[in-house]
């Protein structure tokens, strides 16, 4: 048997393997260039961008919890113009698709961002974040109300012809309803999940540890929730689903594919091990080889129930 085929296609974007880096956990790519080969992963998804530079929340912004971490970065980012000037030139030199994650405080800002990004040939696709729990306006409002989600995704759809991925929040009672609204509005793919709202308390000081009081939970602790949601959504929609949440190893990634994911994103694992995404991709290849599976696509949704 020759080498197994790890390539997949998501929203029209061709990936050499199903492993992407999750927004906000991989900077703008360059930060990790010394630790892994950026051309051995499927795609780079950049830190969530807004129209104007955004300050983010006061510190402390992160705290470790059992099996996970809470973050309340508050979407600090350089803004779209600085991204184009300062970050994109490096990304252009890397032969790996770059997907830009974006969010707006208002409906109009989402549209404006999509229009600006639409003009950049280096950007392979957009991932619309309607699910950040750490900003007061925007973000979460669009991500928890199907009508608002429909509206914002429709607007972005009108503003760009690029592949459009919508990133869903787990902080809802009915994730399938949200997924359907986004697909109806024109999403080419869905990624899930973003972080789960959580909290940590310092007993000694009787205070919340994060300056923002609450933060987003990520890491191995959220994997079972993410797997369940990916499984539910993948059955309900016709577009590809990207699985995110606590993926640390190739085994984790393959489980998400069985649950119905066409690709996966590696987040918190990048912090523990900056070469994690490449290691996971290589581990998937080894698994396919050892099990005589010629094509990773055979595993998508192949869960036996």
């Amino acid at each position, binding site marked *: 048997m020759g080498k197994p085929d790890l390539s997949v296609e998501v929203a029209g974007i061709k990936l050499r393997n199903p492993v992407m880096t999750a927004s*906000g*956990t*991989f*900077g703008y790519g360059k*930060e*990790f260039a*010394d*630790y892994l080969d950026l051309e051995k992963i499927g795609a780079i998804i950049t*830190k969530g961008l807004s129209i104007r*530079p*955004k*300050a*983010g929340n006061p*510190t*402390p*912004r*992160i*705290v*470790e919890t*059992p*099996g*996970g*971490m809470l*973050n309340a*970065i508050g979407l*600090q980012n350089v803004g779209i113009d600085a991204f184009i000037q300062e970050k994109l030139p490096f990304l252009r030199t890397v032969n790996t698709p770059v997907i830009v994650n974006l969010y707006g405080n208002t409906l109009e800002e989402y549209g404006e961002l999509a229009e600006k990004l639409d003009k950049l040939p280096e950007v392979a696709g957009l991932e619309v974040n309607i699910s950040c729990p750490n900003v007061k306006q925007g973000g979460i409002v669009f991500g928890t109300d199907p009508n608002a989600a429909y509206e914002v995704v429709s607007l972005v759809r009108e503003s760009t012809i690029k592949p459009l991925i919508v990133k869903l929040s787990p902080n809802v009672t009915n994730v399938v309803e949200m997924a359907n609204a986004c697909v109806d509005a024109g999403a080419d793919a869905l990624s899930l999940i973003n972080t789960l709202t959580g909290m940590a308390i310092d007993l000694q000081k009787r205070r919340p540890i994060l300056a923002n009081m609450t933060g987003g939970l990520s*890491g*191995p602790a959220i994997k079972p929730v993410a797997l369940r949601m990916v499984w539910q959504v993948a059955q309900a929609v016709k577009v590809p689903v990207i699985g995110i949440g606590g993926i*640390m190893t190739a085994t984790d990634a393959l489980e998400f594919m069985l649950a119905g994911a066409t690709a996966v994103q590696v987040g*918190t694992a*990048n*912090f*523990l*091990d*900056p*070469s994690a995404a490449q290691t996971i991709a290589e581990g998937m290849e080894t698994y396919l080889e050892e099990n005589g599976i010629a094509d990773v696509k055979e595993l998508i949704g192949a869960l036996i129930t």
Partner: protein
Amino acid sequence: MQFKSMIISNIEVSPGYFKMRMTAPPAVRSATPGQFIMVRVRDAIDPLLRRPFGIFDLGTFATAYTDCGTQTYFEILYKVVGKGTEMLSTLHQGDHLDILGPLGKGFMPGDPSGEKILVGGGVGMAPLYYLAKEMVKTSKVRLFAGGRNKEDILCITEFERLGVETYVSTDDGTLGASGLVTEVLEKHLSESIDNKTIFACGPFPMLRAIAAIAGRHDIPCQVSLEAYMACGVGACLGCVMKGRNHSNETPDYRCVCKDGPVFDYRDLQWD
């Protein structure tokens, strides 16, 4: 870079404080004083995140096998405060650790003819030893060490062996002068500030007080900061401090891991 180190020794140097010596790849020899490493305490999900530590010392030793030549080692000095440092303290010679580093921007040594004033609070002494070791080669070096009690005053004899003039103070007076290290520093500076530069590491309130002293006397001052870190490479934005020009409209956050941990005190907002 990312590498595996073997622990050469891990000893308690004062109650609750440990010094760990590890092998390092030759590339680590280029580390500058003030840079740090991120340690994966255990190859498991608990503790999940790496723990940052300053480089206490760096050197080479001849290996037992002559054909292997010399090997680079480095040391960290750490205080047991929680889960991760507790686990580290139980590790033994021969155990291996996964490490990232050297990371961040270290101290800028500046004009060798000037006098170097090192100020360390508690375990903030850690990055100052390697700094002192480099600086005594060319400059006059004084160390002001402060802590709550005598157990917090670490490795003074090692500094003295380098030829550093040391001034010790403790809050409870159990060693050296009684009171805050910043009071002793201020007194020393009031005698003369001629061509002196301050290099400080310790708890945030101490650094803020030192920044104020440096401002009052208008002397150059570099501080090494601590922050909660997840990635250590400037990607997560968890470790930021407010830069000089920061406001909500003009965000000027500096990453402690990448833009620091050593900063010119004038580059930060100290409110």
